[in-house]
């Protein structure tokens, strides 16, 4: 009854440890906040949903890769991905993502590390890098950020021990949310500037509700490494929409790699959850990532944020039903309807792109000149980035259903134009 609760709750947290800005180990923070810590540790669970969660696949550990369990391979699920990414590290190893607890190991041991030389910049989103950056920078976060980016991966890896931890999202004194990733600070400032908001400082200007999404946007975003210093940059200078990102890549003449089968200068989109969400009805309604992926839960007299960050479909009751009065089955069915539609279009767009790749390959073999191939290759670059934008986004369209379908429709249109272009010309 309420009265009891009142007394119980006088002080929800017992400060047994004096936290400060140098303590990375979540176990220490967990002493003050055992409930959050306990849920945080549950991100090791692996449960599969139709398009999300992850499946625990046993493997025999090796010297190079000691993991005894990994998530299922997306390349085996859909071999067309190998063709789409031909010549790029992703074509050798790409798996379904799983809980936060695995982020550091999965990055360390992915075969993508073997086929390519990766920079320290990778670590920004796979480890608790906050204190490491502070130390490297002699107290200056940005200096440390720049330093860690350009280190070879192995060296940088030696500086970190934990996956994302409390300190990466929370201020130790007040427990308020904070952004600790310079790449997001700079990215969101650029995005706001594009909207006409000058000198945006996320930790100063963001509302609490916004922070409930921004802490996730530190990592769940499209990115690239800029220049020799491997600076981690989010391509938002023109805005968060797919066409705006492509425009900024085109402007910088940036490419991730040259396609092995067609010679096209192509791009790889990666987990643009934040960007996709920003175009959806939930973002527009002020619903943040944490509302669905870290819903409040009752623990005794208290209500806490479920730090077991996972697919909301594994937790529909708390994640959705406070706002939506539909049954659990009905809500799951609604998500599935959206996802199946997206998946259907994703497959159409994929078949189309594979056909275009075949066409260009064939044309090159027929002796089409570079100049003749250029237009079709550019359409491949566009179609591929748009398709990959939805493919790499991990909600299979749910975060912005119509926008995801719109992007796939445009991808198909680019392919169409590419297939026409390659047929318009005959080899000299």
């Amino acid at each position, binding site marked *: 009854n*309420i009265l009891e*609760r*009142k007394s*119980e*709750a006088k002080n*929800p*947290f017992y400060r047994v440890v004096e936290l400060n800005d140098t303590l990375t180990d979540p176990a220490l923070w967990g002493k003050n906040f055992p409930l959050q810590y306990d849920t945080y540790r549950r991100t090791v669970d692996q449960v599969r949903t139709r398009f999300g969660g992850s499946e625990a696949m046993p493997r025999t550990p090796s010297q190079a890769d000691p993991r005894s369990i990994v998530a299922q391979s997306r390349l085996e699920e859909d071999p067309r991905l190998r063709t789409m990414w031909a010549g790029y590290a992703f074509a050798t190893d790409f798996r379904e993502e799983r809980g936060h607890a695995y982020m550091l190991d999965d990055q360390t041991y992915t075969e993508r590390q073997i086929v390519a030389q990766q920079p320290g910049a990778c670590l920004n989103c796979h480890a608790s890098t906050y204190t490491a950056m502070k130390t490297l920078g002699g107290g200056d976060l940005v200096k440390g950020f720049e330093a860690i980016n350009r280190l070879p991966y192995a060296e940088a890896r030696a500086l970190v021990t934990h996956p994302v931890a409390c300190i990466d999202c929370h201020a130790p004194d*007040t*427990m*308020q949310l904070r952004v600790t990733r310079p790449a997001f600070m700079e990215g969101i400032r650029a995005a706001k500037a594009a909207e006409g908001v000058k000198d945006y400082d996320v930790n100063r200007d963001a*509302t*609490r*509700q916004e922070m409930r999404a921004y802490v996730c946007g530190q990592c769940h975003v499209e990115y690239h490494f800029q220049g020799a210093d491997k600076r981690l940059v989010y391509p938002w200078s023109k805005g968060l929409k797919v066409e705006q990102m492509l425009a900024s890549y085109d402007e910088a003449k940036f490419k991730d790699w040259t396609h092995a089968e067609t010679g096209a200068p192509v791009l790889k989109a990666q987990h643009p959850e934040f960007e996709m969400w920003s175009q959806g009805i939930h973002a527009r309604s*002020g619903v943040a990532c944490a*509302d669905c992926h870290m819903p*409040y839960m*009752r623990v005794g*007299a*208290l*209500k*806490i*944020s479920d730090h077991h960050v996972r697919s909301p479909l594994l937790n529909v009751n708390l994640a959705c039903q*406070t*706002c939506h*009065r539909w049954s659990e089955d009905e809500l799951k069915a609604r998500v599935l309807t959206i996802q199946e539609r997206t998946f259907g279009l994703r497959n159409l767009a994929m078949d189309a792109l594979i056909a275009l790749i075949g066409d260009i390959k064939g044309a090159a073999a027929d002796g089409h000149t570079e100049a003749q191939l250029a237009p079709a290759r550019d359409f491949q670059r566009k179609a591929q980035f748009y398709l990959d934008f939805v493919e790499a986004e991990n909600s299979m369209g749910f975060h912005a259903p119509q926008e995801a379908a719109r992007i796939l429709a445009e991808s198909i249109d680019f392919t169409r134009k590419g297939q026409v272009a390659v047929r318009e010309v005959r080899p000299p």
Partner: protein
Amino acid sequence: MKLPVAVLMLVVAAGLALGVGAYTFVYARGASYLTNDPAACANCHVMREQYDGWIAGSHRAVAVCNDCHTPPGLVSKYATKALNGFWHSFAFTTGRFHEPIQINARNHAVTEAACRHCHAAVVESIDAGRHGAARLTCTGCHASVGHLQ
């Protein structure tokens, strides 16, 4: 029960100044604003929907209109009642109000305070837990608590 009467007089006086308002306030039992009986609120047909929504809602057994729509503490309580009672009477008579009826900023704040008053225990950790942090609005997630939608 001195205070309520005093306030009532005050409102009637203000009403007379405006004529129609006070007429309604009396005739349409605007005074029901001063009671605690939800049915009294429903004296106004325009309150019917909220009344029905409250009956269907989860709080019917634990909270009446005034628990959520008037601040705790006698003075502020009847001040709010008088203010709302008067203006709503006025709006009702002139028929000049936004449809569907929407809570105004002041009354929204009153309601939020009411949530926190009763649920201090439950929300302490998420709400008062960290100094300086802005508050999340309860109804952002619990919109149907007072009135099942």
